[in-house]
């Protein structure tokens, strides 16, 4: 059980996080200077295409990055304490206790040789001083809470005897058994059918209300985000390109990428000849463009985009990494600005406390 005092300020603060992978073919900047926060009890949706760095961000928070990857810069403050500065042993105490994580593939995320109950009880025993009996009882209780029928019997079964949806519930039970402050859910419903997906999201909604738990929900599914998130962070090629509360992101998005994502969702109430797409593909991490990473695919592209754009506050609590003004017009410094002039303008427009 977590006994952290409710710290004043955000629960999780990620500041300038950089996680790079040093491969034979070059350095892949999977997460390049990412900053955002999550408050107690808040659900943050992290959206983006495959490879944009959202999973790596979450793994960085948990410090589960292995060779050839390494966290090279930044801070990850949980209740004010920097997780990146902790000793390994202390970090292990945090993992699974204050911060829990569930993954995308329920079919392979559970150990096939141990029973479901054992695996949940193991998490409990790792972080609380209880007997095996008590841990087992807690495991069954958690399985009931997540909606697994006949929990007692199921606890004694092995993962392969359960369906995909049930396994994901077991994962959630395992993650929540220690009453964490923050749950990181990496694409929890992507591998499941739509109907099961709805059920899982229901379970998560239920539990977050009951336990006042914050959720970092990583997904590429905008529908899930609309349903679950309070605030949204949009990532592209390792950077945060837009951040706002969920209504704003869906109603008045600023960044062209976000706009493109929303436009590409097919609508049932319109007749169209062709579906909208964002032209081009995500740049190879070994061959990133200079300046704005989205420029090659952006319909609003200007000369000034060859210089790295500012991270502006385009509305109250609404941030966007783009040269366009909050109204969507050419920047004050001019559409063709280059070099030092452009860099200075970017510097000026960028918001410090992001």
């Amino acid at each position, binding site marked *: 059980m977590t006994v952290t005092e409710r710290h004043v300020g955000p629960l999780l603060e990620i500041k300038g996080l950089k996680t790079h992978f040093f491969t034979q073919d070059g350095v892949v900047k999977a997460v390049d200077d990412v900053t955002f926060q999550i408050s107690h009890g808040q659900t943050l949706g992290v959206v983006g295409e495959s490879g944009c760095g959202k999973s790596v961000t979450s793994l960085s928070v948990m410090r589960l990055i292995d060779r050839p990857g390494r966290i090279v810069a930044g801070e990850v403050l949980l209740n004010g304490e920097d997780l990146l500065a902790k000793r390994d042993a202390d970090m292990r105490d945090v993992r699974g206790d204050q911060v829990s994580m569930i993954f995308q593939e329920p079919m392979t995320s559970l150990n096939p040789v141990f029973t479901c109950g054992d695996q949940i009880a193991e998490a409990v025993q790792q972080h609380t001083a209880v007997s095996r009996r008590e841990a087992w009882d807690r495991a069954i209780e958690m399985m009931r809470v997540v909606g697994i029928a006949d929990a007692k019997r199921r606890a004694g079964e092995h993962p392969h005897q359960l369906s995909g949806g049930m396994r994901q519930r077991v994962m959630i039970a395992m993650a929540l058994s220690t009453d964490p402050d923050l749950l990181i859910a990496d694409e929890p419903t992507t591998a499941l059918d739509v109907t099961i997906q709805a059920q899982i999201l229901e379970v998560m909604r239920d539990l977050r209300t009951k336990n006042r738990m914050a959720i970092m929900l990583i997904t590429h599914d905008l529908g899930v985000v609309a349903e679950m998130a309070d605030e949204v962070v949009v990532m592209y090629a390792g950077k945060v390109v837009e951040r706002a509360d969920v209504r704003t992101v869906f109603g008045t998005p600023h960044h062209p990428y976000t706009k493109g994502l929303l436009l590409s969702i097919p609508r049932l109430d319109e007749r169209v000849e062709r579906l909208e797409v964002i*032209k*081009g*593909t995500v*740049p190879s991490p070994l*061959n990133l*463009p200079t300046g704005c990473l989205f*420029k*090659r*695919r*952006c*319909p*609003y*592209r*200007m000369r000034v985009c060859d210089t790295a754009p500012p991270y502006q506050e385009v509305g109250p609590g609404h941030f966007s990494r783009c040269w366009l003004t909050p109204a*969507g*017009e050419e920047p004050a410094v001019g559409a063709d600005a280059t070099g030092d002039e452009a860099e200075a303008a970017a510097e000026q427009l960028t918001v410090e406390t992001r």
Partner: protein
Amino acid sequence: MVSDANAAEIERRRLEEAAADSAEIDRTPVRTYWQLVRQRFLKHRLAVIAVIVLIVLATYAIVVPTVTGDAWRETQLFRDDAPPELFNEDGDLTFAVLGYNEQGQNLFARLGKATQTSLTIGLAAVVLIVMIGVFIGSIAGYVGGWIDNLLMRFVDVMLSLPGLFIILMITAFFGQGNVWVVIIAIGLTGWTTAARLVRAEFLSLREVDYVQAARALGASPQRIILRHMLPPALAPIVVAATLGIADSVVVESALSFLGFGIGRDGASLGTMLQNAREYFFSGPLKVLYPGVVLILIVLSASFLGDGLRDALDPRQRVEK
């Protein structure tokens, strides 16, 4: 924003720029399957070294016996255990850089002949193995049904036999000292792996999407088999054959070592080792030369096989 007409113009210009960027990036060169295979293979330093070593050994095996003629079996009793030399007293070039054995035979020449014998037998046996294996495997995989079942039971039986021992039996009973008997014996017992591989490939290839797609597009059976089914089926065969060479050479050597293969008069790596064993104390280095050659053959064939496997089907890689 600016006026509508201008906006459309600017819009179009920007889209063009963006498209130009994309086109530039997409202009990566396209390579054929075989070019990719060769590229991947060359990345394997060990496999490339292995090829070089094998070429060197093959050259040695071909050139030396041809040049030295009968020197490998010419016994010169007054030359027993003589030290290495390039020329003898008469001034003839003997090139006995490894000295002489207890019977006065030129070891260097003998080693060349031995390598030739062992490699030839190994290669011939592998050819037989591949022929039988592909034949049985393709029938089993293509036809399926009870024929497949029957053939696979047969394979099970073959695998339950003590392999080396059966080969010993065959060579001992049917013709000791006969090279062909050795080749056939190894071939008749070694085809099981190849058969299984071919069968597996054919079974899965029958159902694979691109074969179905080709059929849907109206491709003729010949085209399907030649262009779509054969290349992936060949890959494991080639790998198995390469590794099979190492195996066959070892088996032949073991046979000759035990006295069953080509007989004591013949020269193979096995007989040389047997000979060396008998003279452990007097000619200590004799045990080294044929052994080193044998190890080189086996290691090279293994690395070559690994390299080919990775080059032909990178999906199969288990570990980096």
